[in-house]
């Protein structure tokens, strides 16, 4: 039958034909057109509307709301609170996440399963349930404080919740899994022979960890950190419950502006600032590391 005996040269030729030329539009773009259209309609168009709204002051184009963000001491302190809490949360989540991921990557199959479950089960719980559980544990007559008092370690309850500390505890608990999984994936991909090679030329365990293992997994640390940080910026329920009303973060402020005080333009301007900050963050990290790799592309 003709066609059965295709020479390697013919295959190469066919492959060359099929490959998109520099000036030819790939016909497969047609397949993603609906998705692109959806993104434009459902994401970009509302976003453009939001940006437009942020420049609106009583129907006229104005930078009023951006000026408000930089001059209003209340908004400034709210943004500062948000930034501070998210930074602390990210740092703690990364350290804890690194430890857990390291353990997961280097233990036996059975223990790994157990540890994975320990990470996953809280991960699957609703954010509301988790916040309320922390409240029950941490409040002044909660399990932890009453346990410590009964044991005679402290005489009056520690302020563990309804303040920034409570918010950070709740947020770290929520965000650790988001740090664990990318780190674990990266650690699994580390060639164990690298460590063996390091040991074989006389490096101590610690030295081979610091000089070989850590740099190899560093892009994943950045990636996980970025994920946690950006996610943390949008937190709403946890700060609202564990902050006891005294920790107001960005998303809650936006929500109040939209739902109660009807300052939609302020909400728009804050969202634009948040979006720009996130984009700038991505750009900076892209400068430092290979962003494509961090985001999971080969």
């Amino acid at each position, binding site marked *: 039958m003709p066609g059965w005996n295709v020479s390697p040269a013919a295959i190469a030729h066919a492959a060359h034909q099929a490959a998109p030329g520099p000036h030819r539009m790939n016909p497969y773009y047609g397949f993603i057109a609906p998705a692109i259209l959806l993104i434009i309609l459902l994401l970009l168009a509302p976003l453009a509307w939001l940006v437009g709204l942020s420049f609106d002051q009583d129907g006229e184009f104005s930078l009023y709301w951006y000026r408000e963000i930089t001059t209003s*001491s209340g*908004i400034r*302190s709210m943004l500062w609170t948000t930034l501070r809490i998210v930074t602390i949360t990210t740092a703690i989540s990364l350290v804890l996440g690194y430890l857990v991921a390291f353990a997961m990557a280097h233990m036996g199959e059975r223990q790994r399963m157990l540890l994975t479950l320990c990470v996953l089960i809280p991960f699957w719980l609703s954010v509301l349930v988790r916040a309320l559980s922390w409240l029950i544990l941490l409040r002044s007559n909660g399990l932890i404080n009453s346990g410590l008092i009964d044991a005679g370690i402290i005489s009056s309850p520690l302020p563990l919740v309804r303040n920034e500390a409570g918010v950070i505890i709740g947020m770290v608990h929520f965000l650790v899994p988001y740090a664990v999984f990318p780190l674990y994936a990266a650690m699994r991909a580390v060639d164990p022979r690298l460590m063996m090679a390091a040991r074989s030329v006389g490096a101590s365990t610690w030295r081979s960890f610091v000089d070989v293992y850590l740099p190899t997994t560093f892009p994943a640390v950045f990636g996980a950190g970025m994920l946690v940080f950006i996610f943390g910026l949008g937190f709403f329920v946890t700060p609202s419950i564990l902050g006891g009303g005294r920790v107001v973060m960005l998303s809650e402020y936006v929500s109040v502006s939209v739902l109660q005080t009807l300052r939609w333009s302020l909400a728009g301007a804050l969202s634009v600032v948040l979006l720009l900050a996130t984009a700038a963050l991505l750009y900076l990290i892209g400068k430092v590391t290979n962003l494509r790799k961090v985001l999971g592309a080969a």
Partner: protein
Amino acid sequence: MSKRFNEDLVEIARSEVTAGRMSRRDFVQLCLIAGVAPVVASTGIMSPGEAMAQAKELVLANFGGDAVKGMGEAWGEPFTKDTGINVVVDGATPLAGKIKAMVESGKVVWDVCDADGFLCNQLGSQGLLEDVDYSIVDKSMVRDGWAWPQGVANYTYSFVIAYKKSMFPDKPPTYADFFDVEKYPGKRTMWKYQMGAMEACLLGDGVPPDQLYPADIDRAVKKAKSFADNIIYWESGASSQQLFMDEEVVMGNIWNTRSSILERDTDGEVTWTWDQGLFCPAAFVIPKGNPAGAKVANEFLASILIPERQIKLLELLGNGPSNPKASEMLPENLRRLDPGYPTNLAKQIMRNEEWYEKNYDLAVEKWLDGISS
């Protein structure tokens, strides 16, 4: 009576047509005999009643919880009995922003929304609400000043001091006691979103009750901040109740509805005083372009002012009647629960709707900025 029967007849005939057991010509004839104009739309056949009140359904949006069942029972069911229009209570928290979003996008799903008195003018002046038709709603059934152009008072509530009775065996606390942790140790609770809390701070700071408004927001914030470590802010009515049940707080500025439940649930250990309470009117508003039509919504507003129905709500939820005649009719056991009952009202301060109408946004904003920084 006969009109209702005829409508029912047409209703039956309509389903016969839809099922194919009756011809359209016979249907039109029957409508003529019954004295109702047939409406034959391309999509089907609508009786006139239906054409007017489209889905024969009225969606009432409120703030959820027990109020879904309570308003359904006290106000929805009797209205359905009167008119045949089904009332669906949606506990979806109709905050001002949601109403604005709905009306401006033209996708209104609520017919009547639970709101605050001052919001009627605030939202109304932005063109977001239908006018209340005072030829349908009887103005004399609410207190003077509570029949706004775009909204009518539906019930009353109050921010009161709830407290542990054992701390005050002889007399109820005042806001001076509220802010005195030396003498009365323990944490306090106030609403996170300024209302009630601001007034509490001002009273505690020595502002005489008759000079609360125009309110000095900055002074209130300063007072709250100076007292910060002793306050746990409550976010929802349920959490205000929980804080007492968990014995996390000993005093609180909370809603009277919650304080009466607390008294019941703690066998009187937690109780409340009407002294220095902040008396507030709530209101129903109709979002512009509501699906059931303004007429049906207005009929509903008229129906909820009937004293018996107002009393029923007080019985079920602890919300006071907005119709003063209902307060007069109260049986002995309910009088203590009604914030608007004359002897209770005499001890309280009326919230100033005009002030809130102009300053609510600013006040919430300043308050939140203040307590969180």
